[in-house]
């Protein structure tokens, strides 16, 4: 308009929308998780604050913000407070390339998948910083576990994503979505069922969600790497975790479940994307409240002995079939 390139305005709006989306999702997801957990456990969940407890997450957020920011003695103050910020910022960037509808795409990036995979690895760094800078042995143990887990589970994730991009020939998420237009049978999940299953399992491992939540195993490590964080430090980690969950589920919906396309050709829109993302999120919440926690060596065994060979086999099979 005034000499400001359109693309810059686009970017700014997309960034702000991203941040808003993460924040809103954190609130909604917290409520969903607590309500869903309550009903699985035969109790009503939050009920008092607002009708059926809908204002609960808002009030909880206010409560978290009003608490005292404590820094433990002998901790590295710079790293201590850098860790939650480092955990939160990349999450917002993750939502830029994801197409929520033909119009609602943050940026059309040709290397969208690469961007996402790169930024999702920041979480590992943030966790190490948090655990180490806390000056707490339990934090260090939690951080060590989290790093090993994140690094391990990125590889099958990467291999599944590679299989999809071999098949579709592009790393651009909008194009991958476009190729799944049509009937429900055109969705990638029917062409790559093994990759879908491996992706779901690796998703649990990447986001530190139960049954793979050893990094923050409350009953073993007294909250692991975020033991020493109070108030908004903890709040940021919390929001970042939910942000990663939503991002991963959105990516799964885009890659495998057809993105914003409906089951029959013609109907498409952002509500389909929302529906699929939230269906996967409910799956994650459901699994958390049902299963006990896997032991750490069993977790890594699952990855290195099962997921990795299966994902490699899937990739090779895809490459072979593409050649033929």
């Amino acid at each position, binding site marked *: 308009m005034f000499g400001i390139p359109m693309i810059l305005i686009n970017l700014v709006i997309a960034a702000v929308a991203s941040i808003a989306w993460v924040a809103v999702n954190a609130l909604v997801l917290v409520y969903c998780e607590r309500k869903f*957990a309550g009903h*699985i*456990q*035969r*109790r009503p969940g939050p009920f008092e604050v607002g009708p059926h407890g809908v204002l609960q997450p808002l009030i909880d957020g206010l409560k978290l913000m009003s608490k005292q920011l404590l820094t433990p003695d002998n901790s590295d103050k710079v790293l201590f407070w850098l860790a939650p910020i480092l955990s939160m910022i990349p999450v917002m960037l993750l939502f830029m390339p994801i197409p929520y509808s033909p119009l609602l795409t943050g940026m059309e990036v040709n290397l969208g998948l690469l961007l996402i995979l790169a930024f999702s690895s920041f979480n590992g760094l943030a966790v190490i910083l948090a655990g180490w800078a806390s000056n707490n*042995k*339990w934090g*260090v*143990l939690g951080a060590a576990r989290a790093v090993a887990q994140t690094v391990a589970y990125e590889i099958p994730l990467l291999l599944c994503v590679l299989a999809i991009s071999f098949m579709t020939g592009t790393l651009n998420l909008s194009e991958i979505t476009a190729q799944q237009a049509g009937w429900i049978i055109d969705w990638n999940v029917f062409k790559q069922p093994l990759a879908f299953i491996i992706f779901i399992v690796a998703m649990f491992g990447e986001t530190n969600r*139960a*049954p793979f*939540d*050893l990094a923050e*195993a*409350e*009953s*073993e490590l*007294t909250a692991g790497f975020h033991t020493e964080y109070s108030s908004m430090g903890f709040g940021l980690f919390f929001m970042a975790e939910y942000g990663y969950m939503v991002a991963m589920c959105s990516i799964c919906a885009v890659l495998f479940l057809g993105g914003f396309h409906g089951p029959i050709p013609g109907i498409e829109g952002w509500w389909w994307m929302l529906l699929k993302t939230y269906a996967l999120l409910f799956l994650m919440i459901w699994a*958390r*409240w*049902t*299963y*006990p*926690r*896997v*032991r*750490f*060596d*069993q977790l890594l065994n699952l990855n290195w002995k099962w997921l990795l060979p299966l994902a490699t086999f899937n990739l090779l099979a895809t490459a072979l079939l593409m050649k033929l």
Partner: protein
Amino acid sequence: MSAYQNLEQMTGDFYTQKFEAAKQDGTLIINMGPQHPSTHGVLRIVIEVDGEYIVRAEPVLGYLHRMHEKMGETQTWGAFIPNMGRVDYGHPMAWNWSYVGAVEKLMGIEVPERAEYLRVIMTELNRITSHLLWWGAYILDLGAFTPIMYAFDDREMLLDILQRPSASRLTYSNFRVGGVQMDLDDKCIEMIKAFIPHFRERLPMYHDLVTENIILRKRIEGVGIIDQDMCRRYGCTGPVLRGAGVAYDVRKDEPYSVYDRFDFDIPTQDSACSAGRYHVRVAEMEQSLRIIEQALEQLPGAEGKHIMDKAPKPAMKPPAGEAYFNTEGGRGKVGIYAVSDGTKVPYRVKLRAPGFSNMNAFAEASTGTILADAVAILGSLDLIIPELDR
């Protein structure tokens, strides 16, 4: 006294310093507890870990020590009964029974038959509440947040039942020397009769949802081997011993009261690991239901009242002597050794807690395992810390 205060080194207290004296290279020394979500009370374990493998573990007790044995020497015989409710809040009726049983032996009292049946019914119901609490909390430690809610659902029904004859929900002290405090009224017996089929239906559901879950099985199978030789050396009893393959239950091997009139099994497992102990306890709940059923059938035909006529007053004076009485509690063999010198205050009351001996085996059982396994082993021992520390 000051030999135990090492003021030059300011890091860690006496026990940590002593533990660190034998530290190896490349290991980390951490404290599990006394504030820790999975130690079921105020228990502290100093652990030396190499990566995630436990090299050495030493429990440090005493955080909940209230010196009940001294209280036993300053209170009258009858006034000590409520203390028994506080020693083990999981299965306080077994402790009540051991104590009044020891006093009855000293005084040579015979309890009326109806009181015996009432004691059996209430103790077995209490055993089920204890095992439900253990089960919910154990699965919670292992990371599943839901089964504890279901277990407490059933437990609430039982607490309502047990509230009627005892006016308490957790720390029961309704046993008296010569019988029990109150009889079961008709409403209570109806509630028990309604509870039994309800619980029988729930047990298969727990089995399908939780016991057969592959993640749980991988967490507890083969973890924490406490075999028969270890049990003998440490004096382990209860599900720990039965999980190692020995069918030793005080109710069958040293029968007391009217237990010889009931037909029930002693579940055992041969695996000697946490899974074995788990299965033993779950099976025991079913056996307790059987005992309660049979006791309810035989109750109307029992003679006497709920307490003997002219029951001893709280300031009773048993003749001089010693007596030992043990019962089967939810955790193992509860034993009380009472020594009387003929006055209204005991000379010595020794509380033999099963958890104390079971916990002793933890250090040996957990060496070489992973930190997460330590949590699984602790849970499978079913510890109630007030019982360890007394």
